[in-house]
């Protein structure tokens, strides 16, 4: 135990002495959390819209007004030839074009039905879908409004009115629709993971590269002691970073903390063992820091992109969802979001935490096993 303790002290001193690194590992997560929390959103405001109104009636003008009235669209240009429309889309001057045909009002009065054309720049996939459903919602609302006010030609014969559809939508858990409450926990996890994994992945290869690993290898310390001594300092540092993130999340972004903080920390403690253990394992299988870095980069990218942080896991193909089950980030982010935002308890998050614990045990065993005290 004393051996481990001395080594832990040595690691701590080494890191604390390196001022540049110290500043980096604390400043980078803090600054990025503060800035990037504002970026992770699909909340499209004021989409640039081009209106081609060939009808030029009060009804068509009303439609343009409704489109502009919400905050979702902003008419930047009116009336353009087909060529100009092409050019505006190609050069990203506008994102959407709405084309109201001649006889729009007439069709509505006579047939109670008209069609407008909506052209969208589908260059940004998911965003396009949102713009489209925004536009459809405004069209539907306007149609409902006109249904009551617009004089009718046909319907004088006393046909029964259809049942009015009364669709009430409700969003659970995040009624204010503050995406930051959802994204800040994910960003915290991402940033802590990146720093923790990089530091550990680089650690043993560094000792190997500068030759000090040999010196450690000739000491009587066991493999388990060695891995433990390498793990504990970074574990503490990562927990500190995580705590700073949590404080910022609470004070700056006002993320709710509906569930138990003890649960959050229990999950964090277990999760960090998985990530740091993985970093140490990478460190034992690579020969140079360069290799270790690129492998770590690869692993981090898989963790982040396939963990449901920014894109929904449900949309992924089945095999990828299966792989995602082995992704610690996915489970930890799930626990964080569930406990903080939804106020979930141990009955909901117990299983993922147990899964993380098993993963942590497995990866540490692997790291200890893979680490060789003898060099070829």
């Amino acid at each position: 135990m004393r051996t481990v303790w001395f080594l832990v002290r040595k690691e701590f001193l080494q890191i604390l002495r390196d001022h540049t690194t110290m500043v980096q590992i604390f400043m980078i997560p803090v600054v990025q959390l503060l800035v990037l929390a504002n970026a992770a959103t699909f909340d499209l405001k004021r989409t640039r819209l081009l209106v081609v109104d060939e009808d030029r009636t009060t009804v068509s003008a009303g439609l343009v007004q409704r489109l502009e009235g919400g905050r979702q669209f902003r008419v930047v240009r009116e009336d353009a030839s087909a060529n100009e429309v092409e050019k505006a889309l190609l050069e990203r001057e506008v994102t959407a074009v709405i084309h109201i045909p001649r006889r729009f009002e007439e069709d509505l009065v006579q047939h109670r039905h008209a069609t407008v054309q909506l052209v969208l720049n589908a260059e940004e996939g998911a965003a396009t879908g949102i713009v489209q459903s925004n536009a459809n919602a405004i069209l539907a609302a306007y149609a409902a409004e006109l249904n009551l006010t617009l004089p009718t030609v046909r319907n004088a014969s006393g046909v029964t009115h259809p049942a009015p559809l009364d669709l009430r939508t409700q969003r659970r858990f995040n009624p204010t629709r503050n995406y930051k409450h959802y994204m800040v926990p994910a960003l915290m996890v991402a940033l802590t993971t990146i720093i923790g994994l990089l530091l550990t992945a680089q650690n043993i290869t560094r000792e190997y590269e500068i030759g000090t690993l040999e010196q450690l290898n000739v000491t009587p310390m066991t493999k388990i002691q060695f891995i433990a001594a390498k793990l504990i300092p970074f574990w503490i540092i990562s927990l500190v970073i995580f705590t700073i993130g949590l404080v910022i999340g609470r004070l700056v972004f006002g993320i709710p903390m509906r569930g138990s903080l003890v649960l959050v920390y229990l999950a964090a403690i277990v999760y960090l063992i998985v990530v740091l253990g993985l970093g140490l394992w990478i460190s034992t299988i690579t020969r140079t820091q360069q290799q270790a870095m690129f492998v770590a980069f690869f692993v981090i990218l898989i963790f982040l992109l396939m963990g449901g942080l920014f894109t929904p896991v449900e949309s992924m193909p089945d095999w990828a969802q299966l792989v995602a089950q082995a992704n610690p980030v996915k489970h930890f982010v799930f626990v964080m979001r569930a406990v903080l935002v939804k106020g979930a308890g141990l009955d909901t998050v117990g299983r993922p935490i147990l899964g993380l614990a098993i993963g942590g045990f497995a990866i540490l065993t692997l790291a200890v096993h893979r680490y060789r005290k003898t060099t070829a």
Partner: protein
Amino acid sequence: MKAFLGFVRKETLHLLRDRQTLAILLLLPPLQVLIFGFAVRTDVRKIPIVLVDPAPDVATLELRDRLAASERFRLLAVAPSTQVLDAQFRSGSIRQALVLPRDVERRLGRGDSLPIQLLTDGSDPNTGGIMQGYATAVVQRWYTDAVPSGNGLRIDASSRLRYNPTLESSHLFVPGLVAFVLTIMSAMMTAISITREKETGTMEMLLVSPIRPSAIVAGKVTPYVVLAFVSVLLVLIAARTVFQVPQRGSLALLLGECGLYILTALALGIVISTQAPTQRTAMIFALAGLMMPTMLLSGFIFPLDSLPVWLRAISNVVPARWFLLIVRGIMIKGAGLATLWQETLILVGMTAFFLIVGSRKLAIRLG
């Protein structure tokens, strides 16, 4: 010149000798594009939904069929009551629930009001909004078809999605991945290779040699330019053959722009390496410092239009943001230099800036 070529030769030999690293550098980018191109989808599909239908009849069966047939939804169950919904929402096993009243068929016939409740897991407001939009569309279409001959006034939108009519996720994601992976890999390669010489002490030796500092840097970067370019070619081949990402613009222009961007990213790596004393600081800077900003401020995942104004201003200094516009422009939209000259010019300017700052800093270390 001869000294320079000799130096380039030395660097190339360094790189070629270390087979393991070479393989990692060359194959990692295409591998990443392959995996993520397949695995990650930015659109929302297969939303787990529950239909609460206390008294099934013909009309509600029709709605059930429509939900089951839709690619967007995965109809998990048809429940008689709302009892278990809370627990299911909390555990995340369902994301939406549609609650129907009794007597749907009769209400439709009689003209009573039809109260339907749509519950959506809003903990992720991004996808929450999208899911709500999809479900609303399904219900509304079902309703218009179900009511006896349309008395309600309708305005339909016939949508044309330009450049990517099927909204195929990989066509947009793959160009984004190219920009993202290229930035990190290239910046990291030079940053680490230069700081390693510092750490092992061989940089001092190089600096006292008659080769000029800028030539040292150029010599170190040259093999990586070639390496990164080969890697890009592999990535583009994968994009074309595996994902059928269209190549609507000129291939020569695309390759030229990729070459330019490799230079930009490598030059960024040079700047990082001049600031960092050790490989550790260099790689924390290159990876932890660049990764998230490049991912979130480039339009790779989230649309730049949704950023607040001040953040959009900041995003202008992210090189990948401009390269992403160029790659998508050429590949997806078939744009030419006439449209993309501004973005190209910005990248040229950034590269020049990085190179000047990098060589200045290196020269200062000499004195």
